[in-house]
């Protein structure tokens, strides 16, 4: 049926389109334009063509930041998604267990990340932190170190905090998905003699595959966007060992005042995230077709 007033749908969509154009489209286009200039954010711009992109690709800190964020994502897939899955499996096997247990695991997600980071900076403090004090108390002085000041441990230390926060979040998603599995399927597996671990690995996890894939996508794309935890805990240090694209971009734009270069970095970062997203979706679609 044709509408009587052909402009009406457009008028309804116009406010949302205007907000989208102003809040998303214009800044994205502007960022692309800024990336071709040398500009401090204020005053005149100088057109530099692709100079900022060439510089970014040759900038070892920028390139290294992608390596760091990739390592962070790989470790957090284990600490957040895999551990969250195991926690959800344990809870589901025990029919939910105590609700307080679930609340306790989910609580870190509700804390602002800056608060979490400040708390953990005390835990990791090399001089009076909880980790070193505990190690000393049990006679393991040899293992004490400046966790956030040692390039060998700083990135892993940040990953652990991230895992502590988000394992509960993924656990909540997986737990919700696991409770949707028809009980008769589980019963059938039990009657066939499968143990809880086998049921979890061979029955439950394949049945919540969609939830697992969504969580993996969230973990990967969220990993590229992470900022606050790194910024507060290490500020990208020591010696750029935990520099990730977002912290480096912030440093370049707000500390060095290089908006043009920072914009080129933002464009490259966006391109990488989109590329990863496309690859992920293709893989998912391919596996869907196989199934």
């Amino acid at each position, binding site marked *: 049926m044709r509408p009587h007033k052909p402009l009406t749908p457009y008028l309804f969509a116009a406010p949302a389109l205007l907000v989208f154009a102003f*809040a998303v489209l*214009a*800044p994205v286009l*502007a*960022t692309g334009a*800024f990336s071709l200039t040398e500009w*401090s*954010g*204020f*005053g005149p711009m100088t057109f530099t063509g692709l100079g900022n992109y060439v510089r970014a690709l040759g900038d070892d800190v920028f390139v290294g930041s992608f390596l760091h964020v990739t390592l962070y994502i790989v470790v957090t897939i284990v600490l957040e998604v895999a551990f969250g899955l195991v926690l959800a499996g344990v809870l589901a096997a025990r029919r939910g267990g105590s609700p307080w247990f679930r609340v306790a695991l989910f609580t870190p*997600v509700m804390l602002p*990340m800056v608060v979490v980071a400040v708390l953990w900076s005390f835990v990791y*403090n*090399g*001089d*009076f932190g909880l980790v070193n004090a505990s190690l000393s108390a049990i006679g393991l002085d040899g293992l004490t170190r*400046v*966790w*956030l*000041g*040692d*390039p060998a441990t*700083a990135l892993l230390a940040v990953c652990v905090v991230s895992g502590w926060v*988000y394992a509960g*979040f993924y656990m909540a998603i997986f737990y919700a998905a696991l409770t949707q599995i028809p009980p008769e399927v589980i019963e059938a597996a039990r009657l066939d003699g499968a143990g809880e671990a086998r049921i979890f690995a061979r029955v439950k996890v394949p049945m919540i595959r969609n939830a697992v894939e969504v969580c993996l996508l*969230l973990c990967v*794309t*969220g990993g590229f*966007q*992470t*900022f*606050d935890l790194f910024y507060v805990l*290490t*500020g990208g*240090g*020591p*010696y750029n060992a935990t520099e990730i*694209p*977002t912290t480096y*971009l*912030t440093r370049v*734009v*707000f*500390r*060095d*005042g*290089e*908006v043009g270069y*920072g*914009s080129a*970095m*933002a464009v490259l*970062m*966006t391109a990488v995230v989109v590329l990863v997203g496309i690859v992920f979706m293709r893989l998912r679609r391919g596996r869907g077709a196989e199934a």
Partner: protein
Amino acid sequence: MPRIPIGTFALVLLFTAACGGGAKTPSDNVLRIAMVSPGEAQIRVWKDIAGQYEKAHPGSKVELNFQKDTLYQAIGLPSLLNGRQAPDIYFEWAGDRLRTRVKEGFAADLGTQVTGGPLKGLIADSAYNRVKIDGKIVMVPFAADVTNVLWYNPKLLTDAGVQPPKTFDDLLAACDRLNAKGITPITSGNKDLWPAGNWLAHLVSRVVGEQSYHDTLSGKSGMNTPEWERAFGYIAQLKQHRCVNESANAANDNEGAQLFFKGKAAMHPIGSWLVSWAIDEAPGLAFDYVNLPEMPGGMGDQSSVIGVVTGYVVNAKSAKVKESAEFLALANSPANVAAFVKSGTVPLTKGTTPDKEVDQRTIRLDGLLADAKTVVSPPDTGYDLKRADALYRALAAVLGGEKSPKDALAEAASKAG
């Protein structure tokens, strides 16, 4: 879980600021003043002065905008100056930053206001020397801060049989003795790079000479020279003698100071603000200072002081230059100067006499700066931030034993541009 896309958010903010584009201050009856947050005691004085001004100028209003110093220094002030409600008066550090403001057209020539206007005779002529750009007075100097001396705990030094170090060799010997006693010789919280950066930049200036230091940080000459390598070699010696806490590059300035306040470290290189800080955090602690120890074979003035003059600039784009000068004159009136002194700051106003309540160490530090033959500007307030950052990162890498002086300098030279 989706995190805050901070990069995009930041660029959206910048885009919005760029769209604003208004650099002229509005011609209403509001006098806008922006500054770094000077602490509650001083904020009360500024609010009182604002009230006095409003009373003396019926119909006018004073808006005070206090920002955290790191925010103000990097993006806060440029955003305000380029915004639609740009400040008429703003706080600034003398040096390269002030020169940049002049270049951008945000600093009014205050010559007429100082020679024949409301600011006449309030501040000694000599105090204007450091705030003149191209012969023009572009800032009303307010205070002078020593940004780094070596604070020490006399009891810990005495217990270890150590005197406050006068030379670099004394310092290394003190480190060895204190380490033998199980005491951290020097504590620094250098996660943000400026705390040890300021201290070690001063050390470098003493070794390479002030001219080389100035030329290098001004971009006129390179960092990768034998003199600079020699200076960085002394920092490597500090690492070899385990002078500085291992956690230095992971701790922030507050965490670094806590080791000193709790008596776990014998020395702490930081600025004059440690005195007021200690009043709150370690009221019973006895401590004193020495200037940076003399460097062997140094080409610079071995009694130089690292410090900075801060003050207030009147926005050249403001329609209220005269009113701004009147406000600054009011801030420098005897009653208000006395209030500032009570709040722990000693303004540069003529005839200012430190109150009995002002800590003697603060008074001595003011004297140290006033009597100094050579005052070295800190890299982050006196020079281009990018170059300062490259230097600070190189200093931190050598102090932490992560890089050799040669490698650190090579990297700094390439980053400084």
